[in-house]
């Protein structure tokens, strides 16, 4: 099949990071593209800058040298004197402050890309992809939140022979996925909790749509790899693990990847005007992961532990 999705020039993607030499987001040397915006609000989320679909301002008090350049240049008068306080109701996200800031303490998080422009970024390491069995990983946020952009972008990657891996939380309309399927080489599919109520409590949405999509993807012929972030006290109990394993078996999935909780996003959270609820936990101990792993193994699943 030779799909000819015409890239619409109007379609823009909003991306908050393009990370080269990613070694832990799929096989080989990869470039990971972090799309902005997510339908979930997982309370342990370490990428708070991924929540909103729109661009936003980030300000680091630690980097700020109190030079007040931002105050001077802001056309909307949104930055108040002396303490560099940002009045977000006035801010138009014009970016003047970020451009003027010598210390790079103020940044605009998120950048608009045309498919062509993002292709230029994603293609920088093409030689390394082919030399290592790597490729591009679409991550976020939730990349499916920008599926129309992906419909223009993925064919461009494929035209260059680049391996595409999609990382998703699974919360999307299936119709958005159908057109993308021919381009995806691998899908990393996150499961947060097997119980609908608990899922709603911890992530803000139920898991009905997510499980439905996992079922459809599993039957679609595209290789799917289920993954689970292990959050102490949230989803690491025996009951949830047994239920998750049962779900996976039902979809014919025999392997799960387990990602340990970490709190490396702590600093980022403070730099954003972020209202989302958040639980802070201690980083995982290696032994705790082993315990979860063994429970899955007892349920008959193969487990890959991330570090």
């Amino acid at each position, binding site marked *: 099949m030779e799909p000819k999705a015409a890239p619409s020039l109007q379609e823009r993607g909003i991306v908050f990071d393009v*990370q*080269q*030499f990613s*070694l*832990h987001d799929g*096989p*080989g*040397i990869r470039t990971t593209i972090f799309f902005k915006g997510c339908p979930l609000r997982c309370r342990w989320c370490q990428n708070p800058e991924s929540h909103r679909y729109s661009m936003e301002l980030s300000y680091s008090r630690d980097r700020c*040298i109190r*030079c007040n*350049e931002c105050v001077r240049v802001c056309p909307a008068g949104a930055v108040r004197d002396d303490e560099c306080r940002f009045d977000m109701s006035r801010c138009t996200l014009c970016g003047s402050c970020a451009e003027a800031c*010598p*210390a*790079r303490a103020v940044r605009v998080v998120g950048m608009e890309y045309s498919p062509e422009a993002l292709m230029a970024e994603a293609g*920088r*390491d093409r*030689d*390394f992809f*082919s*030399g*290592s*069995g*790597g490729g591009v990983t679409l991550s976020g946020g939730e990349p499916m939140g920008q599926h129309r952009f992906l419909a223009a972008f993925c064919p461009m990657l494929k035209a260059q022979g680049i391996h595409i891996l999609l990382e998703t939380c699974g919360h999307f309309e299936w119709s958005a996925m159908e057109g993308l399927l021919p381009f995806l080489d691998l899908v990393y599919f996150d499961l947060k909790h097997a119980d609908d109520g608990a899922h709603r409590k911890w992530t803000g949405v139920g898991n009905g749509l997510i499980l439905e999509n996992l079922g459809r993807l599993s039957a679609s012929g595209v290789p799917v790899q289920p993954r689970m972030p292990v959050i102490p006290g949230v989803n690491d109990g025996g009951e949830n693990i047994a239920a998750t394993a049962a779900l996976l078996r039902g979809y014919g999935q025999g392997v799960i990847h387990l990602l340990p909780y970490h709190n490396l996003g702590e600093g980022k959270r403070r730099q954003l005007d972020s209202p989302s609820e958040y639980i802070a936990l201690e980083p995982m101990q290696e032994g705790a992961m082993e315990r979860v792993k063994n429970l899955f193994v007892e349920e008959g699943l193969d487990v890959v532990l991330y*570090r």
Partner: protein
Amino acid sequence: MSYYIDEMRPLPARAAALREEVQGAVQSVCTERAIIWTQYHRRRENRKKPAVVRMAEALAEVLARKSIAIYPGELIVGNFSSKRVGGSIFPELHGVPVMLDLLRFRNRETNPLAVTGKEIRSLLAVIPFWMFRFMALRAYRSPLARIRFVADQLKAHFYLINESGGISHIAPDYEKLIRIGAGGFIAEIEERERDSAPDEVARDLYRAMKIIAEGIARFGERYGELAAAMAGEEADPAKRRELEAIAESCRRVPRGGAETFRDAVQSLFFAQIALNLESLDNSVCPGRMDQYLYPYYRRDLERGLITRDEAKELLACFSIKMSEIIPVFSSHLTNFHGGMFNGQVVTVGGVDRNGSDGVNELTYIFLELMDQLRMRQPNYHARVHAASPRQYMDIITGMLARGSNTPALYCDESIIAMMTKNGYSLEDARDYTGVGCVEPVSQGKSFSSTDAAIFNVPLCLEMALNGGRRFGHLFRSGARTGPAGSLMTMDSVKGAFEAQLRRKMGDLIRDLRAVELANRRYHPTPLTSMLIDGCIDAGRCSTAGGARYNFSGVQCVAPADTGDALFAVERAVFQEGRYTMKGLVAHLKRNLRDQRVRLYLRNLEKFGNDREETDRWTLYVIDRFGETLRSFGKNTRGGGYVTGLYSVTAHEYFGRITGALPSGRRRGEPFASGIAPESGMDRFGPTAVCNSVNRIDFTKIGNGVNLNAKFDPHSLRGDEGRAALQGLIQTYFRRGGMQMQINVLDPEMLAAARDDPALYPNLMVRVSGYSSYFNDLTPAMKDEIIRRSLYQC
């Protein structure tokens, strides 16, 4: 059978014991060479002899009189010095400044060396004889020029002429020595004397070669006699048999050709010692040992004389022996050549002279040894090409991913293309090995002064921005170019920079040529000449251009700092108009005290992030450097001057003495090493760095390049990490990369090692092209390593 090294195997007991002895030994100064050399030259009857004969006789006398010892458990014997781990002093080369530093050796912070009061007194006694006879002083005749040059070199702000310490930097023709022995060389030379009509110069050279050939033959026999005597007194039958085997081998080689694998290793090790005593004890490189030793190994295997394990044990003994030598440098020279390392390269793998892959069983033995020994010396290099065996690549990348930090990797395709373009024959280019740090030469055929000089490029930009004066200086030390206010376009900035570059590189070449002639005249090297192809045929010493290939390397230090500074000028002054040229220079003179200015400049894009608009300035600097160098024509040995992109530790020293740069780097901060991006300025990781560096046309970099890629241990964990590393290396090479070395660093470990040197005495890091123990680095270098590794994590 698979030799894949899954994890560190324990070392064989003998090698483990020898390593412990060597690593535990106190690094000491040995006075023997300096004293015997002086005694020889003081004798009246020797003063009238031709210089080349004097060198041969003096070296032969050192070899005949120096103390010798066979240590318990050794299978390969020979001593670089009278100490277990020691270094010699070369009073006729760089030795006088070194000796003036004597009293400080014991207590200096970096690389302290043991020396007794008696030894100090005996060394002080030889200083007067050499005070007006050492190399740097002999470069010029006029007293004023002498004083100017020596004073210049003691500061070395613009450049350092390493060649005034001697040349060395050779990969001798050990294959031939092993095959025909010193006796074979004598016969060949005698034949040459009979059949050709040598002129006087050639006659003197041949006479000298025969003297020193006899000298190294006798040197081996001394060990034969010592081993036999020790065997006679040995009660333990196993140990007695070992000593008898040593005696047997040393009676045969190096006088005769090797009959066994063991003879071959022993023969080359004696020559290795002698060459290190002839001229500068730096970068005498055995080179492609897995290639030229393999026929002996195979023959012994077939005859049932040796097993794989026995061969490995012999090579382990050899490898450990190579760590028994250290360089004795003054504190000043330690700034440039940190890390107590003599640059003795052993290269494995790569294609042979016919272009087929040369990996063999010895290659794998060497790989196991470098992983298991992890010692400072020799400096192990591995050559790779597109058709290198899978197993070979897997083992190497496995070792590196686990943090062995050795071997350094070299790409055959790129290096052979560069060498043939520079005039090497295809076969000779295929037979290349690195010498010193990263410099490719043809084994047994090149006499290239690869570390002739090191040049401080950013200082030229400093002067270009300030009318030919360094910041804060009243006198103009560079070319007369316009003041900052007159630089109205980027072209005028480039013009001023190029004028400074021409002036200072011109000064360098003038001094270098004087030193080349002084080496030829006062310090010919007959033993080196005998072991480098072409000198016997030509009847000319290697210092006089007798060798087949004769390049001189000049190192371009801190191209990225300079390129980033030029980009910053373009962006800040001519594109954004944020500052005037005059205003910017005023900030630089104030050492970027204003945080706003400094941070703005620092946060501008830098080399190493795969951005064409920035990278092109570093390419411009490298290109201008190379073209300027080329404009000076040939050296006095008839070879070209070629660019090197490595800095050893000079980037740290040159950084210390250079003012603030428009890149936002403040006065005194270290420059980037080799061709690496400025420290902490590569934001997108190693692939982006490779993309930037791959923009360089390496066929123009005749003296080699050093790219240090650093990783935190985490990212290379497991087989996925190893495979990714392999993909990175192979892709970089496929696109023209020349050399790469992999450092896996753990910042916590490094910080602990800095705070307590006793904690990890053997912690090894790669500093610009070679391995060194962390403890041997200057405090500033340690901090730099830690800072870099923190950034990585």
